[in-house]
């Protein structure tokens, strides 16, 4: 019989989780209740009464504030008890730790079928109906994708003696069998199975697969290892994963017929033509000054940092899992991207994280389509997932942003980035290279395999719909991963492995398959893999995306040393097979061959996609708006918009300074509450070099022309970097595309327009990165960010995240956005145009506009170089980029961050075709900065900026008045910076922290 231990707060002590819940219930659901939280452990193992008692009185309780109950329910306080537990098989990190502790205290080793499971019981007191209680359970406490919940009223709780000790075990599962699919049946039948199994293969691809299996030499080879001509489920699943959009980027590699204004041309691979094409050009042009070391071929891009170290940087998305389970999806997103730089070259130590989230507005009041969660719940879950993933891994989260748009209701976008540092040479070889050798053991390191995340790669290659499998959701375990990375860094420095990569999308199938390209073959025994529970089918073991696993190649002479160190550091390492040169991807289970595929076919047999794209220009007919009556109200309204407002609530919950390298933090200024444009990190505490990290993202301009949207995102990323002291000479970019489906089909009539949007974005990427000399070193695309349910379709706005990393020689020559002292000159650098399309200002009044911001490339480059030089010379006192909310918001932010007012006149600003104060204040023209300098430095400044447009707007004040005169010289604003700060901080205070 399983035992149950419940932990409740002692009378007279504060139940902080309960109090927090009570507030949240009031704020989000409007119920006035009292809430208590009780933690429960179900222990399904034969333990002595002694140990059970120790668990109850000490191990599971904090004896100062809590009390334990063994096999008796905690006294109910309230009218309802709601228990939320994990569904069988869902990762239970607390349960895992509890098991480990019990093992070390009792000496009892948990056998198969035994376990520790945790759950939470909520006691709710208040006049709620049963319907209210179910709503509370489903909308706030439990996520039915991963949780089960039980509600009991007082009488039931009493009568049934609490919640009961039900262990959510997995059961025995099925006998491990292998299915074969007759290859000779027609295509129609294979298509049916394809849909049923979420393979997401196209008819063309299935034809290629059929051709392969029916080839005479293939059949002969297969017969020799005991297989028929028909593919096994292991083979079909491996092919489907390896050939998925997620893994192969089929759209980016497709042949595209592109039509624009009646002219047609063919593009053979967007990726090769524009992304890799521009990087190649830039590297050639830089010649000896090229700082790129490894681009687009490994898990992350690698650049030179200083004489001793390189940096590896990668950004990934984890959108669909975050839509279904925001916490688990985002947690997996961050710990997943950690493994990218960690699995790059010989492995990098992780030094910082970045995160950018896109959601629907948290105060959304409309209805929520089936299977979706309220955006506020999504935001909180994602925020917490990244908090736990980053903080518990000891990696500072240094830069990020939150972007809001109604159309992220169908799918949130969760971008997670990680940068790692690696010595330039390891064991006398360049660290960014690696190669598995024939005869090396294939070793899986870290977590165990379960059904988690099966079909993650294929499932993210389709839209989210009523049939999306929930098994794709997984919960990360930062501690298991931390133990693993601690161990592998030691093994790396001792030269114990020859190659490393991570297990992400596609599981072992992808990771071993990719590593095996080094030697052209591998043999893997699936039955040797450590499992979380019994009953997994061979293909499930191969495909599982269970987290916290890396693969390494270890030569026979290092094998014992490697396994020994692993054991000492409490990390599971298992030899699964070895690398061969047979040309075959050879998988066995119980000694029998279950997959036997040609490496060449697996990796290069995928037929190219052929797609059509057609560009159309769209003009909207809109009534213009009048000038605002009250500019103070208008400015406060813009500052209080979700896209502009303070994100301090989120930022403070992320550790942004662990590892000691923090130089410029995300929050800055007199009261540490101003928004930094970029972060500066010193990854090597023994050197003065710094890494400046920033990003640009502006999906709101996509509706006009993705060419300009892309240009603006690049400009914004670079602008933020430069404003903080970054260097255009050693600057690298990462491109992350999140698109709504660009493939034309019956269900997707807009496909060819969306593909044209993708083409135009890529053209801009090419044009502007080449112009600025800022190569893309890595990137990712996610192509099916749509939600479909019957006739409801929600597509995300086409979104690009440009992440930007520059390396500077002296981390003390950096800059912050806050005005530093009274009487400094306030200067705007860059020209303002009447580019109101997509601006926060127009959106506030429900307008789109027709003219989006455009980047004037050559002038932008000159501007960046000049600002960089001025910051380096030390004549700049503060520098802030003007972006969302335009010059008005940038001025306000610099002012309240510095605790100083301003006295400025808009008439001094360089402008083109602007006749209204509101357009000048709120236009979002790119390549502009708000700068302050000491009056005596104006001469130097003017000489330096002789070929860059700028205007001296006025001065900072010593009091808190924010005074602005308009184009006609009339005073249009006189407001306290405290009022502006309040307006800017209000949204998150009101909806989250209150």
């Amino acid at each position, binding site marked *: 019989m399983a035992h149950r231990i419940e932990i409740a707060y002692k009378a007279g002590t504060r139940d*902080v*989780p309960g109090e*927090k819940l009570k507030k949240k219930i009031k704020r989000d659901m409007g119920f006035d209740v009292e809430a208590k939280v009780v933690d429960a452990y179900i222990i399904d193992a034969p333990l002595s009464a002694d140990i059970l008692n*120790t668990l109850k009185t*000490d*191990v*599971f309780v*904090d*004896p*100062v*504030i809590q009390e334990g109950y063994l096999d008796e329910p905690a006294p109910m306080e309230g009218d309802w008890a709601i228990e939320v537990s994990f569904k069988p098989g869902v990762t239970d*990190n*607390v349960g895992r*730790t*509890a098991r*480990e*502790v019990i093992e*070390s*205290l009792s000496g009892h080793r948990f056998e198969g079928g035994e376990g520790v499971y945790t759950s939470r019981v909520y006691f709710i007191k208040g006049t709620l109906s049963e319907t209210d209680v179910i709503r509370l359970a489903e909308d706030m406490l439990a996520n039915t994708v991963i949780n089960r919940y039980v509600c009991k009223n007082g009488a039931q709780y009493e009568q049934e003696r609490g919640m009961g000790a039900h262990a959510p075990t997995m059961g025995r599962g099925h006998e491990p069998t292998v299915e074969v699919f007759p290859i000779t049946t027609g295509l129609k039948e294979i298509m049916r199975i394809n849909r049923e199994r979420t393979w997401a293969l196209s008819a063309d691809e299935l034809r290629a697969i059929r051709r392969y299996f029916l080839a005479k030499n293939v059949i002969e080879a297969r017969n020799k290892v005991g297989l028929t001509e028909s593919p096994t489920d292991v083979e079909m699943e491996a092919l489907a994963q390896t050939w998925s959009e997620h893994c192969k980027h089929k759209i980016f590699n497709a042949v595209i017929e592109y039509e624009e204004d009646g002219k047609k041309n063919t593009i053979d691979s967007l990726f090769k033509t524009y992304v890799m094409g521009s990087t190649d050009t830039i590297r050639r042009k830089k010649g000896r000054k090229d700082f790129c070391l490894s681009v687009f071929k490994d898990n992350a891009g690698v650049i030179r940092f200083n004489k001793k170290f390189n940096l590896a940087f990668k950004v990934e998305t984890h959108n669909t899992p975050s839509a279904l389970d925001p916490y688990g999806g985002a947690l997996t997103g961050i710990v997943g991207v950690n493994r990218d730089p960690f699995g790059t070259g010989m492995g990098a130590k992780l030094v910082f994280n970045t995160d950018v989230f896109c959601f629907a507005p948290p105060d959304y009041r409309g209805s929520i389509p089936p299977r979706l969660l309220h955006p506020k719940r999504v935001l909180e879950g994602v925020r917490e997932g990244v*908090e736990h993933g980053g*903080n*518990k*891994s*000891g990696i500072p989260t240094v830069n990020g942003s939150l972007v809001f748009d109604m159309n992220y209701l169908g799918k949130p976008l969760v971008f997670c980035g990680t940068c790692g540092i690696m010595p330039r040479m390891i064991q006398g070889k360049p660290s960014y290279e690696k190669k598995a050798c024939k005869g090396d053991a294939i070793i899986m390191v870290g977590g165990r395999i379960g059904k988690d995340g099966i079909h993650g790669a294929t499932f993210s290659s389709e839209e989210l719909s009523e049939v999306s499998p929930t098994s794709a959701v997984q919960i990360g*375990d*930062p*501690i298991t991963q*931390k*133990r693993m990375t*601690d161990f592998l860094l030691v093994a790396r420095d001792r030269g114990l492995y020859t190659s490393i990569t991570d297990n992400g999308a596609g599981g072992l199938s992808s990771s071993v398959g990719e590593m095996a390209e080094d030697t052209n073959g591998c043999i893997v025994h699936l039955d040797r893999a450590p499992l979380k529970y019994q009953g997994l089918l061979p293909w499930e073991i191969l495909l599982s995306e269970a987290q916290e696993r890396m693969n390494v190649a270890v030569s026979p002479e290092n094998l014992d040393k490697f396994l020994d160190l692993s054991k*000492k*550091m*409490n990390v599971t390492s298992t030899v699964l097979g070895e690398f061969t040169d047979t040309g075959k991807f050879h998988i066995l289970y119980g000694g029998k061959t279950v997959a036997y595929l040609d490496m060449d076919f697996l990796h290069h047999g995928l037929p190219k996609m052929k797609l059509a794209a057609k560009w159309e220009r769209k003009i909207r007919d809109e009534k213009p708006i009048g000038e605002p009556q009250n500019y103070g109200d208008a400015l406060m309204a813009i500052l209080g918009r979700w896209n502009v407002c303070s994100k301090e609530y989120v930022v*403070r*919950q*992320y*550790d*942004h*300074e*662990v*590892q*000691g390298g*923090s*130089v*410029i*933090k995300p*929050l*800055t*200024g*007199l009261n*540490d509450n101003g928004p930094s444009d970029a972060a500066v990190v*010193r990854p090597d*505490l023994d050197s003065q070099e710094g890494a400046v990290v920033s990003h640009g993202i502006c999906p709101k301009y996509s509706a006009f022309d993705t060419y300009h949207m892309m240009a603006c995102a690049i400009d914004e990323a670079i602008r933020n970097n430069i404003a903080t002291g970054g260097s255009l000479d050693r600057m690298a970019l990462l491109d992350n595309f999140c698109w709504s489906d660009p493939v034309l089909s019956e269900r997707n009539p807009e496909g060819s327009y969306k593909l044209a949007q993708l083409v135009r974005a890529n053209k801009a990427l090419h044009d502007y990165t080449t112009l600025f000399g800022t190569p893309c070193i890595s990137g990712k695309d996610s192509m099916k960010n749509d939600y479909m349910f019957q006739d409801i379709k929600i597509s995300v706005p086409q979104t690009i995240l440009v992440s930007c990393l520059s390396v500077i020689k002296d*981390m003390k020559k*950096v*800059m*912050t956005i*806050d005005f*530093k002292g009274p009487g400094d000159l306030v200067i705007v650098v860059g020209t303002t145009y009447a580019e109101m399309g997509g601006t926060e200002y127009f959106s506030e009044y429900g307008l789109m506009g027709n003219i989006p911001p455009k980047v004037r490339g050559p002038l932008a480059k000159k501007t960046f170089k000049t600002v960089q030089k001025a910051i380096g010379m030390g004549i700049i006192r503060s520098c802030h980029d003007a972006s969302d909310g335009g010059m008005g918001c940038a001025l306000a932010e610099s002012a309240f961050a*510095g605790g100083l007012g301003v006295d400025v006149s808009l008439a001094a600003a360089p402008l083109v075709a602007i006749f209204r104060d509101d357009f000048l204040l709120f236009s979002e023209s790119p390549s502009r900065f708000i700068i302050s300098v000491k009056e005596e430095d104006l001469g130097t400044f003017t000489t330096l900026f002789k070929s860059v447009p700028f205007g001296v707007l006025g001065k900072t004040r010593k009091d808190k008045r924010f005074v602005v005169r308009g184009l006609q010289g009339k005073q249009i604003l006189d407001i306290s910076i405290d009022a502006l700060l309040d307006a800017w901080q209000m949204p998150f205070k009101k909806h989250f922290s209150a």
Partner: protein
Amino acid sequence: MKKMKPKSLILTGNGINCEYETAHAHTLVGFEPDLLHINGLVEDPAAIHKYTFLTLPGGFLDGDDLGSAKAQAVRWRYQKIGEKGKRFVDELIEFVAKGKIILGICNGFQLLVKTGLLPGLKGNYDTQTVTLTFNDSGRFEDRWVYLRGNQFSRCIFTKDIDTIYLPVRHGEGKLIVDASETLGQIRKDGHIVMQYCDERGHVTPEYPYNPNGSVDSAAGLCDETGRIFGLMPHPEAFIHQTQHPRWTREQVGEVGDGLRIFQNAFKYVIENQLGGTIDE
């Protein structure tokens, strides 16, 4: 004469994550730090006796899954190691009895409290009398705080420290006592070594100066010898000028406030000839 630096020990592994910058601080003040995986102590618990100064850095031991640092505390309290069946806490008590010193930062402080080593009232190191639990805000927060040192404390780490400025980065830092007598004893015997205060140095219970709602605004405790010290804020996070949140706008010295705690540790080790010599 050959230069000999005193050897210090920093524990790592199992979720500890501030070992890198902690080792940097040790090195800067003159120690020669070794990093040791916390599991290594199960094999060789006596390994600590080679050192004079032990630091338990910040992090998330076992993910804080059973409450902050709890799982590790339980192992140290209950797990019998080796043939003699000694517990690791006994080694630590012996370590301190030899006049050596222990610093627990953040998660390391939580570990010291949950093993009973702090405050260790009247030399009783076996009973947990206080705890560090959820902040009143219910949230993990990263923010900088002002701290006032207790001039009357025996703590060797905080000697001559009046006020300092350091970051807190925790979700469970609120100090609570098990009974009012405990609080009386803690106050009477000068166990509260550092308190949260405002920028002028006045101790205050007000958020966010006191970021978690700790009783008496206590941020750090020592034992009655003054040689075991635990602190929620991170001294290793303010070693260099550029770690200060406002170094770009205020006059901030080259050396950060946090280094003084490590300097005091070094001075103590040298003055008490616990190991190593340095060239004058």
